């Protein structure tokens, strides 16, 4: 059964991961721009990263039959230096014509600071100006609840349609507000520190299967590029229907991502 991992950082993964994902049924991925694990020190570093996301990674992915898409931004972890963040944002339009760009992401907040919020607002304005989809990162752990609320208000203030915005990393205390306000919601499956496949399926059972997806957010840290197929096994273990499993891991991602004309899938 085909699936989509709509949030994974493949620049940090090996070709073995691509192979195993393809073997598990992965047919498409989307890769948001992310923090490298250290702060990049120049705009040129970001220009190279955006070239990697728009040229190198799609070619690598294609060798495994996986359609690759991307989202561009400067990550909230690097937004505390608002001046530098603005310089990076100024080069994003150079890449918006690349055929695999879906929108702006993963933008959002990290520690809920004023500078982060300013940079988020500037990214939202960029998305509005170019009519792009938005993929939102919400803060982790103690900062998530507050950050999610601040982000939803910022999106509303920017005049963006919540139907074109996906708010990622939702958990038990944020999923309800995100869906109630008309956004799409993403659940990120982590090996141990945050949301497990079991809890993600609990959330689906409580909140339903509309406007929600699951992703691995696999990156250079502790993470699992096969988290989505593992969550599908968890759904099957609980006797959720094949139709529900397909809806969460294929149909819903297709429905949201197809709001960008650049989303394509051969499955």
């Amino acid at each position, binding site marked *: 059964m085909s699936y989509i991992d709509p949030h994974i950082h493949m620049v940090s993964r090996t070709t073995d991961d691509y192979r195993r994902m393809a073997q598990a049924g992965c047919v498409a991925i989307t890769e948001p721009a992310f923090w490298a694990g250290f702060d990049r020190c120049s705009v040129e570093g970001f220009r190279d990263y955006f070239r990697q996301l728009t040229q190198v990674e799609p070619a690598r992915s294609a060798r495994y039959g996986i359609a690759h898409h991307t989202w561009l931004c400067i990550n909230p*972890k690097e937004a505390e230096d608002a001046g530098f963040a603005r310089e990076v944002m100024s080069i994003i339009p150079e890449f918006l014509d690349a055929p695999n760009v879906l929108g702006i992401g993963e933008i959002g907040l990290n520690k809920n*600071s*004023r500078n982060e919020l300013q940079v988020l607002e500037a990214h939202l304005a960029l998305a509005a100006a170019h009519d792009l989809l938005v993929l939102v990162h919400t803060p982790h*752990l103690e900062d998530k*609840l507050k950050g999610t609320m*601040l982000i939803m208000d910022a999106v509303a203030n920017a005049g963006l349609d919540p139907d074109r915005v996906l708010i990622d990393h939702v958990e038990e*205390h944020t999923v309800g507000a995100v869906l109630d306000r008309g956004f799409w919601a993403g659940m990120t499956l982590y090996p141990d520190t945050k949301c497990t496949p079991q809890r993600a399926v609990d959330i689906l059972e409580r909140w339903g299967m509309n406007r929600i997806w699951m992703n691995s957010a696999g990156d250079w840290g502790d993470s699992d590029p096969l988290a989505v197929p593992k969550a599908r096994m968890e759904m099957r273990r*609980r006797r959720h229907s094949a139709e529900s499993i397909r809806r969460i891991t294929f149909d819903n991602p297709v429905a949201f991502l197809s709001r960008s004309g650049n989303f394509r899938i051969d499955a």
Partner: protein
Amino acid sequence: MSDARCPLNAAEIVDAYFLEHRAKVLDIAAFLDRIDRAADAPAAMDYRVAALIECIALLLDGEGDRARRIQERLSDRTSEPVDRAPMQGAMGAPEADG
């Protein structure tokens, strides 16, 4: 919202998950014991451990919606942006209200 049901019946849920969660309770107990045995014991209670113990109390109050309530107990409940990001990571429990 869906009908909020898990398709498994209660006995099936217990059969499927009991051992995993039995082990997690033992992990918490051993973690607290380990703090008692720390090289500098007895040390002052860390705010994160205090929060964890309050979360355990939430499990015993007879109310439902436990996961959401624990998440909220472990969240910063202020609403204004902070002036500066104090670090890039997160600690897992809010420091201010302990």
